[in-house]
């Protein structure tokens, strides 16, 4: 007991020394920056943040801690951030399109607004892609459309979450191709992979990186981009095949509204540099590295909001009809 007690006192003294050494340098950043990820550890947002972490630390000359606040498809962290985070640049948060567009429209208690923060950057993009089993009898998008027309509602499309990029893109495909599909939401990209391999769903509207990572077991029918992807050169775009479908998920970073412009600038520069430094690694993992900052970043949100507006409206009408 006595030994433990003495040990405790020594520790307390040590802690005092560590706390005292915090302040010192001048100008932002003076203390560690907290980078909040609103999803689980090990997810794509987390892995990317950890890749960025060490570069950010070098550029900013400060510790950057990645913390997780998962829940509600991101909404828990986002609502708390908009409510409580101080606009001093020491708390930054990862944000996602279309989550921040769809959730405030679809949920009464989302607790945040799409525009309620200052965007620093959108640093990468994962386009949607329609993917099926490699050895199945669907080889092309035409096969897929034909099968879905023959058997309305029988073709299942797995996707990650509801009102997500995957979900909205599936609805767009239904609309443009005149199909009736059955969208089966999953709790993330993870569980979709075995579901497709085991034949429990016929296809998945997913991110192109799934098609890259599981090239051996899966066939990507089409990607939702303007031009073909460098990592999947043989896969046509939806546009080539006659369907105007371009979309996917963007990941970025935001700070609270009212953060001083100098700090926003410093963070923006740091993130731009970091994005360039990790670009190769990101491309290998199947991400598209295209960044948007400042006004462009806000414009991107506005554009995507308009892009999904009609589909979200359709959804709301369907719901109203069912009541």
């Amino acid at each position, binding site marked *: 007991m006595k030994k433990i007690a003495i*040990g*405790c006192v020594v520790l307390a003294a040590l802690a005092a020394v560590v706390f005292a050494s915090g302040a010192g340098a001048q100008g932002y950043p003076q203390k560690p920056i907290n980078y909040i990820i609103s999803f689980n550890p090990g997810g794509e947002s987390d892995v990317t943040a950890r890749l960025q972490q060490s570069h950010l630390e070098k550029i900013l000359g400060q510790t950057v801690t990645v913390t997780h606040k998962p829940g509600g498809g991101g909404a828990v962290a986002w609502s708390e951030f908009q409510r409580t985070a101080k606009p001093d640049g020491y708390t930054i948060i990862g944000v996602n399109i279309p989550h921040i567009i769809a959730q405030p429209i679809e949920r009464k208690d989302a607790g945040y607004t799409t525009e309620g923060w200052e965007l620093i950057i959108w640093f990468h993009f994962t386009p949607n892609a329609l993917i099926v089993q490699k050895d199945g009898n669907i080889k092309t998008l035409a096969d897929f459309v034909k099968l879905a027309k023959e058997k309305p509602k029988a073709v299942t499309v797995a996707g990650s979450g509801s009102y997500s990029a995957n979900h909205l893109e599936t609805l767009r495909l239904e609309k443009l191709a005149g199909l009736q599909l059955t969208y089966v939401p999953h709790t993330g990209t993870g569980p979709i992979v075995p579901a497709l391999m085991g034949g429990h769903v016929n296809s998945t509207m997913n991110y192109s990186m799934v098609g890259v990572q599981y090239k051996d077991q899966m066939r990507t029918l089409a990607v939702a981009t303007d031009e073909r992807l460098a990592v999947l050169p043989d896969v046509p775009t939806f546009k080539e095949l006659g369907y105007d479908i371009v979309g996917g998920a963007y990941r970025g970073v935001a700070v609270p509204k009212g953060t001083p412009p100098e700090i926003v600038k410093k963070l923006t520069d740091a993130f731009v540099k970091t994005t360039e430094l990790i670009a190769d690694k990101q491309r290998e993992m199947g991400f598209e590295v295209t960044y948007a900052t400042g006004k462009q970043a806000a414009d991107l949100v506005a554009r995507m909001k308009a892009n999904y507006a009609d589909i979200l409206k359709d959804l709301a009408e369907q*719901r109203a009809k069912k009541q």
Partner: protein
Amino acid sequence: MIRNVNTDLVAGTLGLLLSFAFWWLIDPEITHLSIVFPAAMITIMAIVSALLVVKGFSRAAERGNLFEVGSNVRVFVTGLFFFGWAFAIGILGFFVASVLAIALIALYLALARRRVSMAAFAAWVLIAAGEVAFFYLIFTRLLHIPLPEGWFL
């Protein structure tokens, strides 16, 4: 202590109240996909609770003494301390709130069996500070989990 309570009846009533509460909280605009499972579970909960109530009125009803172990006042006060601790973290900050809470809980519980001198209590505050520092350092420095700050650390 509360003697000879019909626990089946209590549990059943509680279950019925809970099922009613959940049923009442269902948003009428929610879609089928989101509510089909909870609705089924609420029904099962209600059935199980109803069976418990029926059993409570039968001869097979279980009876038992509630809160029969030790001092219930101490349980109640300890509970208050815990909730107060959590509130204080938001106001005082994690470090200060926890040192205070640990020292005070230790003092309160120790008084049940022994006397505590001022000197001893002062030592306890230091020990508490050491304990909290141990966890504080591990979490903030090693695991990079920032702990809440308030007026103080």
